[in-house]
């Protein structure tokens, strides 16, 4: 057997959450993990810690405490200003080897996944990837993770009994943050750091992030596939009338019709809207996982055999270019009646 750097006998009864941030704001997925972490920690009388790395980010430590952390382990350094795998893995490794948390949760984001993959190997431990559910067994302290595979068609429960920390990544939108409590007390603990320029191989030449599009919480999702032939303007009108937002399958994104942040599915966003309207979408597994949590699904497709109809509450066989303008007209005239 491989042996992890520390074993269950040496662990602290605590859950550690990797805190991601951008532009001075904590990422939603980190708040969601604090929410879930708090719930699990309360049930077991464990403690919840956040791992915060960056440059001039101490303010965010208090934010994390208000969202549920008992402690924030702070790695503060100019070389941590931007995510580089070398600096972040070095700092996180040090924090984890010192603090020995039982459980270590990270967002399944580009940087969260990169960091998780590195650290799991460095710590010689396991990693439950892209979990859709988490539970800690109260007797054994073992983290039981629900993960899916094959584009969402198969669900598995995964656990590790003999290795620590028990690492897991979770995609944005799976859990909900707790209420913020500004009066909550917590401790900020500085991670003693020795970081040198020559430890970092990655050079960030150019960087542009944070357009603020976030489909995980939209109440209405109007999603377009290849069948709408790039006419996202039409979908935007419909979304605006319903107070929602526009999403897409992978092909229109790859073809440059719409931003990558709007891609729904396995390699995109998982949404949980009240209503999802799927327009000109065939219904591939890789897409459908992204709307599985919608309350009501409406599908419009010209092919009566399209698989998407198996995943819809209301099925409309027809041409999107005819049906959608009619819905827009109907919504507008209803709005006029309401305002008259």
């Amino acid at each position, binding site marked *: *057997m*491989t042996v*992890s750097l520390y074993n269950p006998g040496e662990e602290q009864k605590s859950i550690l959450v990797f805190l991601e941030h*951008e532009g001075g704001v904590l990422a939603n997925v980190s708040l969601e993990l604090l929410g879930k972490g708090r719930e699990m920690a309360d049930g077991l009388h464990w403690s919840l810690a956040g791992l915060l790395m960056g440059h001039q980010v101490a303010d965010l430590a208090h934010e994390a405490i208000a969202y549920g952390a008992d402690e924030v382990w702070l790695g503060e350094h100019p070389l941590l200003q931007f995510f580089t*795998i070398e600096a972040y*893995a070095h700092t996180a490794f040090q924090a984890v080897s010192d603090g020995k948390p039982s459980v270590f949760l990270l967002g399944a*984001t*580009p940087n969260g996944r*990169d*960091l998780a*993959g590195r650290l799991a190997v*460095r710590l*010689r*431990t*396991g*990693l*439950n*990837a892209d979990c859709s559910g988490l539970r800690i067994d109260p007797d054994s302290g073992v983290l*039981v993770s629900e993960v*899916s*595979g*094959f*584009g*969402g*068609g*198969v*669900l*598995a*429960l995964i*656990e590790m*009994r003999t290795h620590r920390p028990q690492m897991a990544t979770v995609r944005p939108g799976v859990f909900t943050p707790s209420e913020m409590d500004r009066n909550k007390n917590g401790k900020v603990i500085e991670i003693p750091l020795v970081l040198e320029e020559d430890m970092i*191989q990655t050079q*960030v*030449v*150019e*960087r542009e*992030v944070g*357009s603020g599009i976030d489909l995980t919480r939209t109440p209405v999702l109007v999603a377009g596939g290849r069948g709408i032939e790039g006419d996202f303007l039409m979908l935007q009108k419909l979304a605006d009338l319903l107070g929602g937002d526009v999403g897409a399958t*992978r092909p229109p994104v790859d073809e440059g019709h719409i931003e*990558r*942040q709007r891609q729904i599915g396995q*390699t995109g*966003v998982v949404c949980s809207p009240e*209503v999802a309207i799927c327009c000109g979408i065939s219904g*591939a597994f*890789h897409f459908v996982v992204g709307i599985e949590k919608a309350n009501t*699904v409406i599908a419009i497709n010209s092919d009566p055999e399209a698989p998407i*109809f198996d*995943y*819809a*509450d*209301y*099925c*409309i066989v*027809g041409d999107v270019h005819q*049906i959608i303008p*009619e*819905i827009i*007209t*109907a919504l507008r005239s209803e709005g006029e009646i309401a305002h008259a």
Partner: protein
Amino acid sequence: MPDLHMVVCVKVVPKSEEIRVDPETMHLIREGVRSEINPPDMNALEMALDLKDRHGGRVSLLSMGPPPFETYLQAALAMGADHVYLLSDRAFAGADTLATTYTLAQGIRKLGDVDIVFCGEESADGATGQVPSGLAEWLNVGQLTLLTNIEMDLKRGVARGHRELKGGYEILEVPLPVVVSVTTACNEPRFMDYRIKPWAFEAGRVTVWTAGDLDADENHIGFNGSPTVVSSLAEAPSRERKKQFLEGSPAEIAQLLLNVFREDLPQ
């Protein structure tokens, strides 16, 4: 700089739509299920072949899996790669990402001077996306993940990658050797070259390495090397949907939908 040696890690995966789980044994039913090369691995291979076209060098394919993978790998070889290696041994079975990355890293070490290791962003089956950075850690080299494009500066010995993020992008530079992961559909994989197909499909074209060939530590491979345990496996209960077909003219359908919105949307 001597010629570039690029390794492309290729996984053969069952088609997701066809996979089922035996509810009794909780095992995947693989009989009758067609397989394919994991789609983003084809994009990774295309990226490597494109660099070979521009800068010269050679491309090796590397896969861990059972012997039936061979024909898929030979088809990929016929796209223009130079060598193919299959890591295959009963002792590799049951590998999670820790054991998989160790085993692939041992294969790469055995290949010797490798400049770039290409992977897909994630597999269509396990889909952890953890293999690329885990591999980089075992090899103790830099990484460039989620690339849509790569450029080489061979004089300086660095790779410059365009990394795609959900809310934007980054351009990163990392010295060679480096592990790269490539996003699905970022390029158009070329077709098999029919002139080299006969060569690619010759018997013995695939070099098979076992645990012994790799000098692998038995504590790090297969079930033994895998901290994670699958305690249950089932088909995902797909959410029951009404599947109600709305009929009528487009205008009539629009009215029916307004009723749905009234009921289901908070005012």
